[in-house]
């Protein structure tokens, strides 16, 4: 779990072509990008500075993942915003 850019394409079976997917989702993608842009503008207009907030760093890293050409970007975003798993959790809990 969590291996970047796994060979997911082997199991893909979406019946639509990429052109059909883009036709269907272009306006939705556009709207979501616009919503992000407006959120970042709102953050800039507000008083204060969140550049040192860990969440700002996570958001920046998330945007980098979106711009990659990997075919498991959603999984990578999920892992980015996840707490890490430690194999020794039972020892830490004493159970």
């Amino acid at each position, binding site marked *: *779990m*969590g291996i970047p850019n796994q060979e*997911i394409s082997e*199991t*893909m*079976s*979406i*019946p*639509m072509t990429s052109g059909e997917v883009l036709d*269907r989702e272009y306006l939705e993608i556009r709207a979501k990008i616009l919503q992000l842009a407006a959120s970042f503008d709102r953050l800039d207009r507000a008083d204060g500075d969140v550049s040192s907030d860990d969440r700002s760093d996570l958001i920046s890293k998330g945007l980098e993942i979106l711009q990659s050409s990997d075919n*498991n970007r*959603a*999984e990578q*975003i*999920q*892992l980015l*915003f*996840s*707490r*890490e*798993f430690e194999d020794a*959790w*039972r020892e830490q*809990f*004493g*159970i």
Partner: protein
Amino acid sequence: MYYFDPHIHMVSRTTDDYERLARMGCVGMSEPAFWAGFDRGSVESFRDYFRQLTDFECKRAAQYGIQHYTWLCINAKEAENVELSREVIAMIPEFLDSPNVLGIGEIGLNKNTKNESIIFMEHVDLAVKYDQQILIHTPHLEDKYQGTRMILDMLTSDSRIDPSRVLVDHVEEHTAREVLDRGFWAGMTLYPVSKCTPQRAVDIIEMCGAERLCVNSAGDWGPSKPTAVPDLIMEMRHRGHPESFIKKVVYDNPIEFFSQSQNFSFTPPEER
């Protein structure tokens, strides 16, 4: 298309919802025990709740031609109260012979704490002792990955557990594959904001395949949509998936999983 919602909290919904679900093709559902929105104070509160799940709710569903099943437990949020949790676990066997009880659930983790883990394992013991199937809740948001790994860790290290009789619910992109690869059933919950959207759920189906994969609405008292499974059906149709493939996900799969429970006696609509 007929469908089965394998995870929905109807005690939180109105009778109008039952009618709407029936009109949209819902012919069966299973309702895991869960958090009421507040921590209950005594084992008697749970006894009344289990009576509601095993006696009242199935009758309400039957008025609309929906066959209602249920799962019993004390949920992970209340598992921090270990003393109360143990009282509830000791009381659950009183209800296991009720005709609509499928097993123990939804047990799991919430904040991935020591007490939650202890009570999870005691629920698993109960399920093994009474030969019950298990339905598992995985945590939300940033806790999901860690909690799912912990749950899989506990289950796979217990040789008494048959993965094919356990469904791990609320999987998403980063947890679905490992749950399935280890032989468990997986459930995807369709929520308007958190968890999965119908579009992302169909993506996961396309990437992981439809074997041992179910979808549910988990409709409850919070922001949720009890008719989310029909939304998924529509999304699969829009993408051009064949009806037989859609039916496998929303009808055949939950019935196949539940059929392993001794109390499951579902009658298909065409045979009624």
